[in-house]
């Protein structure tokens, strides 16, 4: 995987993880172009995009778009499942995750991502193991995720 972006329906970036070295300028350009292209697509359209020489695989959960860039020979369907597994992990960790959880605790979202994908490859597919690793590191952490306003679960409403 080359990179992963999470952005809202308003086009606001919520999370970005780059697995290939790119300059900040390139990153910004790519993000801008991709957010535009993905947001312009209709709901019934296919979850894959050809973009330059990359394949973009995206999926919408509630108001949040998850978007991964893979190479042409990679498997698009399994990438969709990577996204889904990540959402499942977030859901389990935050307990019915919503966009606000990710906004206000984005560093946790990054920690979970790093336990699941490392250097662009799937590191651990067992849900139990990933969460065990996170909890181990969290042990010393005080307090939990704070609940904010109305929560809209991502997982309950997959698009």
């Amino acid at each position: 995987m080359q990179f992963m972006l999470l952005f809202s329906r308003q086009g606001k970036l919520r999370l970005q993880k780059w697995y290939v070295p790119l300059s900040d300028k390139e990153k910004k350009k790519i993000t801008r172009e991709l957010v535009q292209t993905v947001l312009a697509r209709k709901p019934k359209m296919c979850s894959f995009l050809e973009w330059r020489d990359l394949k973009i695989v995206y999926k919408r959960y509630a108001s949040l778009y998850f978007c991964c860039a893979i190479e042409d020979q990679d498997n698009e369907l399994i990438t969709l499942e990577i996204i889904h597994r990540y959402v499942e992990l977030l859901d389990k960790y935050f307990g019915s995750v919503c966009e606000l959880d990710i906004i206000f605790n984005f560093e946790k979202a990054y920690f979970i991502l790093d336990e699941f994908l490392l250097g662009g490859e799937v590191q651990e597919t067992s849900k139990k193991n990933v969460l065990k690793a996170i909890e181990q590191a969290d042990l010393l952490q005080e307090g939990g995720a704070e609940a904010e306003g109305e929560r809209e679960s991502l997982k309950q409403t997959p698009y």
Partner: protein
Amino acid sequence: MSDIVEKTLTALPGLFLQNQSVGGPAGVKASFSSRLGGLVRGITALTSKHEEEKLIQQELSNLKATVSAPTTTLKMMKECMVRLIYCEMLGYDASFGYIHAIKLAQQGNLLEKRVGYLAVSLFLHESHELLLLLVNTVVKDLQSTNLVEVCMALTIVSQIFPREMIPAVLPLIEDKLQHSKEIIRRKAVLALYKFHLIAPNQVQHIHIKFRKALCDRDVGVMAASLHIYFRMIKENSSGYKDLTGSFVTILKQVVGGKLPVDFNYHSVPAPWLQIQLLRILGLLGKDDQRTSELMYDVLDESLRRAELNHNVTYAILFECVHTVYSIYPKSELLEKAAKCIGKFVLSPKINLKYLGLKALTYVIQQDPTLALQHQMTIIECLDHPDPIIKRETLELLYRITNAQNITVIVQKMLEYLHQSKEEYIIVNLVGKIADVLVLNTVDTYAPDNAWFIQTMNAVFSVGGDVMHPDIPNNFLRLLAEGFDDETEDQQLRLYAVQSYLTLLDVENVFYPQKFLQVMSWVLGEYSYLLDKDTPEEVLTKLYKLLMNDSVSSETKAWLIAAVTKLTPQAHSSNIVERLIQEFTISLDTCMRQHAFELKHLRENLELMKSLLPVDKSCEDMVVDASLSFLDGFVAEELSQGAAPYKPHHQRQEEKLSQEKVLNFEPYGLSFSSSGFTGRQSPAGISLGSDLSGNSAETGLKETNSLKLEGIKKLWGKEGYLPKKEGKTGDETEALPVPQESIIMENVDQTITKKDQCQVLTQSKEEKEKQLLASSLFVGLGSESTINLLGKADTVSHKFRRKSKVKETKSGETSSAHNITCSYFSSSSNATYEDDYYLDTLQDREDKELNKFSLNSELLDSESLTELPSVEKLSNCKLSSPSLFTDNNMEGFHPSQPTAPSVANETSLASSLLEETSEHMHSDLVEVCHNETISMSSYKIWKDDCLLMVWSVSNKSGLELKSANLEIAPAEYFKITEQPGCCLPVIEAESIKTFQYNVQMEKPFTDGNLTGFINYQMMDTHSVQLEFSVNLSLLDFIRPLKISTENFGKLWLSFANDVKQNVKVSESQAALSSALKTLQQKLRLHVVEIIGNEGLLACQLLPSIPCLLHFRVHGDVLALWFRSSCSSLPDYLLYQCQKVMEGS
């Protein structure tokens, strides 16, 4: 729904605004935890981009003050980091905080460290200089007893780590492979995977440990090791064939549900693992029947098991299909895979449909009938509202283009092209259209002139200036070279001219510059074909364009060239005169020059006509390169006392020698790489000749002849390569014909039946679709299958490009080749190698020596060489074990399977060894074999190159035809064929050899050279065998014989150095023994020994020098390498350590 989120966010800005005024280090600690929340809310409350920017800039300046204040606690720092990350994500620069992120990772407690590491991984990239500051922290954390700290360190290493610092952590990470916790082992494997990606040669020595990881009892660790294996097998599949069994077993266990339930995903066992294994198997089984046979069962099972209707099973199925079509085909599996593709294509789910099209595109060349089966779906997809589906369909159609459906397919492509705006898509699609329109193939499918030119016009107008420059070039070449039929050609050209003139008549249309250039060339060359339009009219149009400001100056140069060509044909030339007037005062110097040239040429119309002949663009010009027509002029000048001409290098030398006279302190000689060879070759210093006691004369002859080969090869490569490719392509394509046509007949029948049933109920729309289908898939029917493969003449192949062009080209190269030979005035040497082949052949029977005499001969030659251990070293230690373990040099052992082949091999080896006895060489090693042939190879370490010799022995009683050896282009190597490499026939029970010169392009430790040999048996059945040979850096290292004085000068002139202390055993501690090891195993030349220090020198072929200074202190050897090449010292050091440890 997100509106709700939005509302929630806007409702809360008040909180933040209260906090905002509290900045700086004295800020209230308690509010720190919610500061991010405040920031987020504050941003959401704003309405304009401008306000957001203001707010964030303020936030950043607050943060800047906070992070640099000495009173800021680490806890506050952690909070600041989070906000900095947030600001960066919004696109603002927070680089002032990078150094603090590193500090936080270094000094913080666990939680702070974690955020510090995260910030580093998000802020920095691999080559960021600040990253070096993190190395110490990582090393410390790797040694920590706290598991969480070790995990964090491994996580950061797997994401970003400076390449040059890998040696600092590598041993620590290797240790972690034995750690008792699986999570640590898993992360260590992934860290090594990262290293393999960025610096493969640094982790080469731990390949054996990867195997251990593959066998790890923990599934996660094993799965992680597959990432490394996938990469390595992708780079070199032949080295890992022995692991096929293991991968198959693992996959069987996974598919059979033997893994812990934890790894299930929606009740499918470890889908990620399955897919990774399938991909690896696909790579291993490619073009390899024996390996493929091992996996048929498990693939069958995978296809069978994946029946659950869930996305993830489709993902596995897709990968399965891909693998089945990648490996050596098995009809049952192909049938099942084809059914699977059907499931995808016919699925109502759009994602699956897309993948179905992708799979079809992949398999269509092997099995065009599949396209027929799904033709109606394909037609539907062609008008799909989703452009991505449309595009994939076009990609599919592009693969099945033939003479009959080209018009429809190209039309569809153009339609799509007109709608798309993205440059990448346009370039890509234009390239494809141009591709199907002949430009890259010998035959064209274009049905007629008008269509062809008009389509190309569309391509040029849309593709414009973004398209690949080859497209206009190829198009023009095609027009100029023409096809078989001369009148056809003229008509095509005439049509082009007419069409362009019409286009230029349209007012206020702007064409892309490339298109204008094409037009101007065609008009310049072929306007003479017009009857009525006099050249004047064309000239007027060109003039109009020239005066147009929107035309670029490059295009103007093309235009004026066209004008120049047309000028001698024109009767009156008012326009030309006006043009000359206009441009002789132009500010553009280039245009001015063209105008002046034209002006002067016009004064001598006869000369101009002979200079610019009509329709001769394809004729070769004879140029008098020696400028003999100037002889008279030169003689006259000389007689009047002019100084004789001196070539540039001569003047340079004289200047240099003059400088030397004037200087009291002599400068050092310049030691450029060319300087080295220049100094070396005339002296005839060659290791082989020196050591074997031959006279210096043979040494000289060697160097000469070898140099010559180097030059010849350059031509040879260009001249012969394209021919060969064509041939192999034909052979492989021709094979599957009969099988396919049978299937296709069946399909055709079913389709026609279907058609008949449907005729009555068809609506008008459907009829249209049917019509489209028949026009699209027309070429794929049974009778035209052959046609698809490019062989039949049944359809009207209007254009067939002249084959003559190619011939003349190769003729040219060969003659050029002759010229070079004679230029070097040693053509006798050039045939040296050929003669030697002849000798080998003639002497073969005489020399059917038995192994005993050969052995003795081998011993002789060994005793002659200075460094007998080198060959053993490279064979035993550096070659990849899987390839050579059993066959090592055992051509001479009685255990060889067939007696005649032994005799042959030995005779071959002996005859070759005789010839090369003055060079060192490795043992004969079998690289591949089947029942018919056996192929062996060995290396000859010549003074100026590495010569790889592959010898093919035909064990069968039959003659083999068109034997052909091809070496795959390798990243690090430059390979050039020696003469006499393509063999039309290998007689029964005989041996032939192929020789290749190998040069190392850039230094590295070792790598594989792969290739294949193919040949045809009597029954025209073509066979292909793959092989691979391991080459090490040491194969390219030669001693560099220089004096101590020169050593000193060179030493100072080199900028790249590497120092390292190596511990050695007691026995080696003595200087002399260390020296001996270096001299023998690394082929270093000992320049001088002073006390406990030694100076050695070597060069990487062709001429990159590397110097070594070393000193012995007790049991420590201080090595210091310097070279003009930046990476060479590192690699040599690595080799040096290896031999020191090894001995």
